[in-house]
């Protein structure tokens, strides 16, 4: 193994296209039937449209090679609405655990499902389909 894999979990999805990341293009180049988890250190965050990208250095483990992974997400606007995200929510140098749907071609990339920031324990997701009702947070106290 050339990466730190904690687990590969088969997940069932009912319909094609019901994925949390798609923003401007389809995402079936990612295998949404799998979850790959990596432990690493954030190298760069590209807080850009139409997809935010996170580069994560994964150290060698168990004799495997170190690798740089690219994790794709939805747009900055959609992430902010998903809750908890800002452009600095995940920063270079952060130790992270990332669950992703991996690229089908085996390259070091995936579509984010969940990121956990090790030091704070903060968990962030990117499911824009979780917002499909009106007046979200309407009941929240004014800031």
């Amino acid at each position, binding site marked *: 193994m050339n990466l730190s894999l904690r687990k590969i979990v088969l997940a069932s999805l009912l319909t094609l296209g019901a994925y949390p990341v798609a*923003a*401007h293009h389809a995402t079936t180049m990612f295998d949404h039937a799998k979850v790959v988890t990596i432990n690493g250190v954030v190298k760069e965050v590209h807080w850009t449209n139409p997809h935010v990208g996170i580069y994560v250095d994964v150290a060698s483990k168990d004799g495997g090679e170190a690798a740089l992974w690219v994790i794709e997400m939805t747009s900055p606007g959609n992430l902010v609405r998903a809750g908890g995200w800002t452009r600095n929510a995940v920063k270079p140098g952060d130790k992270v655990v990332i669950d992703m749907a991996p690229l089908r071609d085996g*390259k070091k990339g995936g579509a984010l499902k969940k990121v956990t920031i090790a030091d704070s324990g903060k968990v962030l997701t990117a499911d824009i389909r979780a917002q499909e009702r009106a007046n979200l947070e309407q009941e929240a106290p004014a800031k």
Partner: protein
Amino acid sequence: MKHFLNVLAAALLACSATSFAQNKPAEKPIINPAPTAKDWADIGKLPDWSGVWNPNISDQDKQHVTNPPPWNAKAAARIQFQQAELKAGRPTPLFVNCLPEGHPSWMMISHNALEILFTPGRVTMLGESDGGRLRRIYTDGRGHPLDPDPTFHGHSIGKWEGNVLVIDTIGVLPQSYIAPSEAHGIPNNGDMHTLERIWVEKDVMHVYMKITAPNVLTKPYETTRYYFRQRARKFDIVEGVCQEGYFAPRIDKDGYHVYEPQPHDVGGNRIPPK
């Protein structure tokens, strides 16, 4: 001498034509009148469409299966190919070039929020992608131009029927897709006409569309898409420049913040380093 007379006659004819043209009454330009206080007051009588509207993406996914457009045989064959490619993990890269999703795909399959502004004589839809996703819908009573220059969103005229905005659109670029998903779509191939009826019920915006595209559909396609109203400030529309994703922010040797091209694969994803 004969040649001289011919030239002279031609010159006199030209002078006469010029004189006629100069004397012809100039075509009166159409002036858009300045809005009056009443015009602004009338805006207040329109239904409240304020806030930010995010799409029902799950319903888009569902309608891709349950309510596909009535494609003609040629278009259906391409859709079948796209479906096979999608299942194989090679989705057709319809929108990865950062050209606008255009009309009617924006209203059908956007994953991004939009807002709607009312001003005298116009309704304006502003979206959050493509760099400047925008529809101008004229409600000042004008008709369509006889031969409008085709654009991604076409030429739209609207009228209010009670609380329903009825929009008629022509002049959409033939390259603009009719896309039931981000991985399935066929260029409308020209002569497309759409009729929309938009209304709001209990903070849900209904966008009924009747798409007539005789070059790719066997009959008009009818669909209703849904958007949810949000008033939480975190839903405010933000800038969304699609091309930005094709570059990586860097600092050059002189200390200037610059963008460097970022390689992407054919599907539009950043290419992971080897």
